[in-house]
C-alpha cells in the first residue's frame, strides 16, 4: 500500500456471461484503457453450462462516469452477443461476506 498521489481505489466488477469467443478480453481491455481504468484481476469459469468471466477494475482514475462506461460495455455486449454488467464491488461484499 504505497499510494502517493493516486486516489484510493474504487473497485468495480465487470461480469461477462454468454458463449466464450476470441477477443472478449481484448475488446474489454480497449474500453478500459481508453477510459483510463486499470484492470486489477481477471477470472473465468464455466458455471451451469454458461461462460462467466469476471474482471475487477479500478475506476478511481476513470475519465468518464459509470453511466458512460456502462453504455460502452453495452455496445460491446451487443456486438459480441454477451451480457455485460458493471457493479461496484461493495454490493458483492455486502451480499456474500458477513
Amino acid at each position, binding site marked *: 500500500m504505497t499510494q502517493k498521489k493516486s486516489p484510493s481505489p474504487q473497485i468495480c466488477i465487470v461480469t461477462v456471461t454468454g458463449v466464450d469467443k476470441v477477443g472478449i478480453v481484448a475488446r474489454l481491455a480497449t474500453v478500459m484503457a481508453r477510459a483510463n481504468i486499470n484492470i486489477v484481476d481477471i*477470472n*473465468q469459469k464455466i458455471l451451469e453450462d454458461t461462460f462467466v468471466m469476471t474482471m475487477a477494475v479500478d475506476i478511481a482514475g476513470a475519465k468518464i462516469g*459509470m453511466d458512460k462506461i456502462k453504455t460502452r460495455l453495452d455496445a460491446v455486449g451487443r456486438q459480441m452477443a454477451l*451480457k455485460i*454488467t458493471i457493479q461496484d464491488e461493495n*454490493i458483492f461484499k455486502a451480499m*456474500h461476506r458477513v
Partner: protein
Amino acid sequence: MRISVEEVYETVRMTLDHHFDIRTVTLGINLKDCIDRDLAAMVQRVRERIVEKGQLLNRCADRIVHKYGIPITNRRIAITPASLLLEPLPRTKATVVRFAKALDAATRKADIDFLGGFGAMVQKGTTAAEENLIEAIPEALSKTQRICGFLNLASTHAGMNMNAIARMGHILRDLAFRSDNGVGCAKIAVFANVPEDNPFMAGAHHGIGEPDYSLNIGISGPGVVRNVVAKNPDCDLTQLSEVIKRTVFKITRAGELIGREMAALMGVPFGIVDISLAPTTSTGDSVAEIIEAMGVGQIGSPGSTAALALLMDAVKKGGAMASGNVGGLSGTFIPVSEDEGMIRAVRAGTLSLEKLEALTSVCSVGLDMFAVPGDTEPEVISAIIADELAIGVANHKTTSVRIIPAPGRKAGDILHFGGLLGSAPVMKVSGTSAARFIRRQGRMPSPISSLRN
C-alpha cells in the same frame, strides 16, 4: 478476500434472470411545519418541498442504479397523514380535493411514481376533519393519478373503530364506481396496526413518530426465493428454511447497503429496510409459485398456510440477521391481481376468499388487490374489512385490506387493470349478509393481553 466468480455470478443472475430489484425507495417527509389556516399558503410550502426532495430522490436513485447495477423500480414519497395537515382548514370536500390535486401536481412535477399518506389514523375515533377527509376520498382519489390513501381503522391497543369501518363499505363502493373497472380502489388500503415507516404503496405514510425525513427501502425477490426453493426439491423443511434464510440474508444486505448510501447521498436519515416479498406480474416473480415449488400443488390447497408460515418465518430470520433496521411491513404480499400464480389459483377454483383470509393470518399484509362482484352490499365490504382487521388486532400484527368492488361484474369475470396492477378474477363472496352486525357500529374493545392460553 476477493469475491469469487461463483459469488458474482449468483448476484448477477438474481437481477438478470430472477427479477431481484429494489422495489421502492420511499422518502418520508414531515409536513407538519407546513400547516396553515390558509390553504393556498400551505399548498405553496408543501409543493416546494415535494418537488425539491422528489427531484433529489430521483437524481440520487439514478446514481445508485448505475453504481450497483441493481434496478430501483419505484421512487416514492410518503407524507405526514393528510388529515393532520387539514385540521385547521375549512371542513369542506372542496378543500380536501384541492389539496389532493396540489399534491398530485407536485408529485408529477418531481417525476415521482406515487405519493402516499393521504389518509388518517382513526383506530379509536374520528375528528371532524378526519371525517371530512374520509367523505372526500372518492372524489379526491378519482380525480388524481399518483396519490395513495390509507386509513388505520383498528389497533391492538385501541380496538376497532366500527363506525369508520361501516362507513368504508360505502366510500369504497363510491370510489370504485367513479373509475374504470373500480381501479380507483387500488390506490387505498385500510389497516389494523399500520406501521409508520412502510415504504410500500398504497399504505405508505410518514408517521407522527418519525423525524423530518426518513429514507425507507423496500427490497423484493420472490423470483430469487422461488429459484432457490426449486433448486432444492428434495431437502426436508428444516433445510429448506435454512436455504431461504441464506438467500433472504443476501438480498437484504444489498437493500441495506443501497438504502444507507441513498440516505447519505441525499443527506437524510436512513430509516428501514422492508423485507417483504412483493410479487409482480412478470413471469416467475410470484409468491404463489414459491409455495408451489415447496410442494403444494396449487396455492389455496391444504398445506398452503403451513408453507406460507414457513416461508414468512425464514424471510424474517434471514432479514433480521442481515440488517438491524428491518421494519415497515416486512411480511409477504399475496395480492391476487399482481401475482400470476394467485390469479391461476383463483381461476381454477383452488383459492377462495376464505382461504385467502386464512393465508393472511400467517403473513402480512392482508387481503390485497382482490375483486368482488359490483353488487356486493356496502355492509358486506365492511364485514370483509372487519374480519381481516380483527385478525391483525387479535394477533398483534399488521393486516390490511385493498378490495376492489368491480362495477357491473359478477364472480368469475376478469378485470384487466394493465401494467403493474395486473388483472383480477372477481371472487365469490359466500354466505349471507352481516349487515345487522355492521350497522350496530360502535367500537370493538381492544383484546385482552393476558390469559393467553
